[in-house]
């Protein structure tokens, strides 16, 4: 199953609820397309809820990084919420925990943008 992305607005923060697998050929480009749409519409505070991501490979990690750089280059901010153990492990292995700001609690995450 490829990744399914739905968005909702919490104040001025756009929360992306991600569900499924982020792998090459299974939605790995879906993230960057959505991020570009959000930025074009002026939504520059983006929180990706990873709670229902079941699987992510290096292509998927690459998409998260591209989404992050695209957002920061547009003077926005992209943060991650509710990482599962496997995604946390991958961020540790790839040292990307030094790049991404991550949260366990949505209210705290949303509040961090202000």
């Amino acid at each position: 199953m490829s990744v399914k992305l739905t968005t909702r607005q919490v104040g001025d923060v756009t929360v992306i609820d991600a569900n499924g697998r982020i792998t090459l050929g299974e939605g790995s480009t879906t993230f960057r397309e959505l991020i570009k749409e959000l930025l074009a519409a002026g939504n520059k505070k983006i929180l990706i809820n990873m709670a229902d991501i079941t699987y992510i490979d290096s292509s998927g990690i690459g998409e998260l990084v591209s989404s992050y750089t695209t957002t920061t280059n547009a003077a926005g901010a992209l943060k991650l919420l509710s990482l599962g153990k496997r995604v946390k492990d991958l961020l540790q292995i790839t040292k990307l925990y030094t790049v991404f700001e991550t949260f366990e609690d949505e209210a705290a995450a949303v509040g961090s943008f202000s």
Partner: protein
Amino acid sequence: MSDTVSGNSLIDHLLDSNLGSVDRAEEIVAEAATSMGFDEEDLHKIGIAIRECMVNAVAHGNRYSAKKKVRLQVWTDTGRLVVHIGDEGNGFEAVTVPDPLAQENLLKHSGRGLLMIQAFMDEFIVRKRDPAGTEVRLVKVLPPHKEF
């Protein structure tokens, strides 16, 4: 699609150079690893490693060529899962891949696959195939208390 030869402990497939083969290889190895008794977390790690190697073989090695195959071999004996994945590409030198942990490379889109494979498997070797291509050898050791 594939040519299969099965022996007592060897699974041998020739797979097409497409993303469907990536899924197929992951399924084949997962079935073998499950039968050995690997737990869910190890199965996940093995699956990621196989997927990364298959993407390298299909996309970077064989460049999705319909004329080129990826050979997948799996051994499941003596408490070890051993997987060989070989492509027919132009060859590959692991040392030429930029260090993905270097500060200047952290925000690059790609280049983390080998790092993830090394982190998830007990042994990972890249070697040239004769006459052409690249073969990787992956080994995952079954924890002693889980041996059947």
